[in-house]
């Protein structure tokens, strides 16, 4: 619509990242370059994923409206590389668990924000045409920040040697949920034909539930020994 509208969307998308960075104390650790490194890892992982997808997954040429269940599932499985990437970032940083998780998640999420939402916002939100989707996109970026923090926490727990036996199952389940979340969402949309605001709400609720579970697990793990 106008530059002002772009400013609105931009603020909605970016300020939570900024607030999180400032309030989580990462700025005191001088973790900026660590976050940038995590972002670079994100780029590298995405590139690998894209190459892999382009090589082994030919474009689906089925009829319109038909949902390619197996194909989409396989594609979502490639997202396992994200877990590997997050692990890589965390293993290269020394420090407390929270610190490692926050650096990896912040870098990862910010890189995604810059790469996949900056340009659509710049091009779309400034045009004459008004559309709610840019506001929705900005909300979505807030949700994905929470999502990546939870995901990093779960990965961190999963890779610990001293993970108690009883934690193994819930952590693995959460891990799978994190990876297949977008796949599940798509399935949801396809099955119930949801409106865009409802999709956003469902996504927020799902992400909230996953992150609450991982928080509970994390807290009990950290304080159990």
């Amino acid at each position, binding site marked *: 619509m106008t530059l002002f509208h772009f400013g*609105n969307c931009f603020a909605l998308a970016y300020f939570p990242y900024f*607030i999180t960075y400032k309030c989580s104390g990462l700025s005191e650790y001088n973790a900026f370059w660590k976050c940038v490194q995590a972002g670079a890892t994100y780029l590298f992982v995405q590139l690998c994923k894209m190459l892999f997808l382009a090589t082994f997954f030919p474009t689906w040429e089925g009829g319109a409206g038909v949902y390619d269940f197996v194909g989409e599932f396989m594609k979502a499985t490639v997202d396992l590389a994200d877990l590997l990437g997050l692990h890589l970032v965390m293993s290269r940083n020394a420090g407390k668990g929270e610190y490692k998780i926050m650096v990896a998640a912040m870098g990862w999420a910010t890189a995604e924000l810059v790469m996949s939402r900056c340009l659509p916002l710049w091009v779309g939100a400034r*045009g004459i045409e008004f559309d709610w989707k840019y506001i929705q996109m900005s909300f979505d970026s807030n949700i994905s920040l929470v999502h990546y923090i939870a995901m990093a926490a779960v990965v961190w727990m999963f890779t610990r040697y001293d993970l108690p036996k009883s934690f193994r199952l819930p952590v693995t389940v959460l891990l799978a949920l994190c990876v297949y979340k977008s796949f599940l969402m798509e399935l949801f949309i396809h099955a119930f034909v949801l409106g865009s605001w409802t999709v956003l709400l469902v996504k927020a609720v799902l992400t909230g539930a996953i992150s609450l579970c991982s928080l509970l697990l994390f807290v009990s793990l950290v304080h159990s020994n």
Partner: protein
Amino acid sequence: MFEEASEVFDNMFKSSFPLTFIVFIPAVLILVSPLPAEAAHEFTVYRMQQYDLQGQPYGTRNAILNTEARTVEAEVLSRRCVIMRLVDFSYDKYQKALRQSAGAVVIILPQNMSSMPQDIVQQFMELEPEMLSTETIVPVYFAMEDDELLSIYTQTLTSSSSQGALSAAEVLLHTATANGFQMVTSGAQSKAMSDWAITSLEGRLTGVGGEDLPTIVVVAHYDSFGVAPWLSYGADSNGSGVSMLLELARLFSKLYTYKRTHAGYNLLFFVSGGGKFNYQGTKRWLEDNLDHTDSSLLQDNVAFVLCLDTLGNGDALHLHVSKPPKEGTPQYALLKELETVAASQYPGMKFSMVHKKINLADDMLAWEHERFGIRRLPAFTLSHLPSHRLAQRSSIMDVRPHVDIEKLSRNTKVVAEALARVIYNLTEKGASGDLHIFTEQMQVQEEHLSAMVDWLSAQPRAAQLVDKDSSVVSTLEYHVGRYLKDVKKHYIKADKRDPEFVFYDQLKQTMNAYRVKPAIFDLLLAVCIAAYLGAMYFAIQNFGMLYSIARRVTQPKVKAH
């Protein structure tokens, strides 16, 4: 000052490469990135007529439109684009919009004109000349209705009509939920088309027996006229006249190929262009033939000039004359023959003569024969319309269903019979009134007429759209050439210094309707986002609280271990 600035930039480039990136990439992005043309709806619009005739401007003078849409019910219309549907269109509303200095007017026409109630069609027909009679500063466009456009109209209507007595809160809610539409045309400003050529066609059948044979001229103009050039199909006016002329040419060319039926009259056929613009094509043709050449059929012995105009409907035929013909002249003979043929062969048809003097003080000539009358050639116009003022002659509603092929063929038959009786002098030879000449293989072919009318009314033929290379002209030339000899094309261009007619372009454009929100909505949104971010800030600040709750919840579980 500039040197200092360049020094600063130089240093910046040299000292830190990344900094230049940070500074320049966004700057380049801001400058380069085009605003996307992804519109809610894109549709074709047809602009109202814009032309100058004899130095007098007519129609809309503007083509550029970039304003927000309103319906006429809204309280403030100034600098807004007023959209109306044909169903609720009236001259009062149109005038109200213009009086309130609206930015533009867009009139939505139904996809299928013939399904409209007859009184609305009639009313609009009569308004068309009114709308064109003076110049309009703002652009006026016509669009064809579709579902998207209708939805845009209804949304605009609800937002326009409900802004009366509402509380502040309701207005705020309204701004957040309602959609506004920004109408934008993509084209440039309209400008005069210089050197526009109007094409006319001429062909003849030469008589036999002697040097100084009398000539009968048959004339019909082929161009159409309506409030919007791209929508004027002109089926009855004057597609019917042109198809009758071609049918007459076909019939008489057949007669003229046999020695026994080759008559002592020259037949000159003229398909004129620019007929709706004061018969410009005819005017120049007469000037060329009478003033600039030494020998022309028009200079010598013209029996009469028969103009055909709007003949595809109705149960009456009117012979419009500017001077009642005297007894003993060929035109009197034709009048009598027409009367005889109509009375004896088609008793249901009414034939009458209408007398109207040429009014030279008028801006526009009434009928085409007046062009010939001014040059002292005996002429008359045949039409089913009783008056030249009737709106059927210049309406976008004049489409194919307005022509009844049966009636057109009957009229053609009457004219052909009467002409033949004059040419072969049959009445003096004692032929009875119900003698049918054009029968069997010589009869008027309805399929032929209907194919011609179909083809002519399949495309808009406004004078601004038919240039000398257009398919209308070339196809007409082909048809004329099939039956007639010495086919010539006449091009006329307006005088450079003192043009008699000026046409303007940008008559068909693409219009985009962008969904927009008012500026107050942006402010509202900014406040909401600020509140949300504030809440986020507090939530993250007090994350420790959530953490300790989680700890307390998990504590017993840990103890159980």
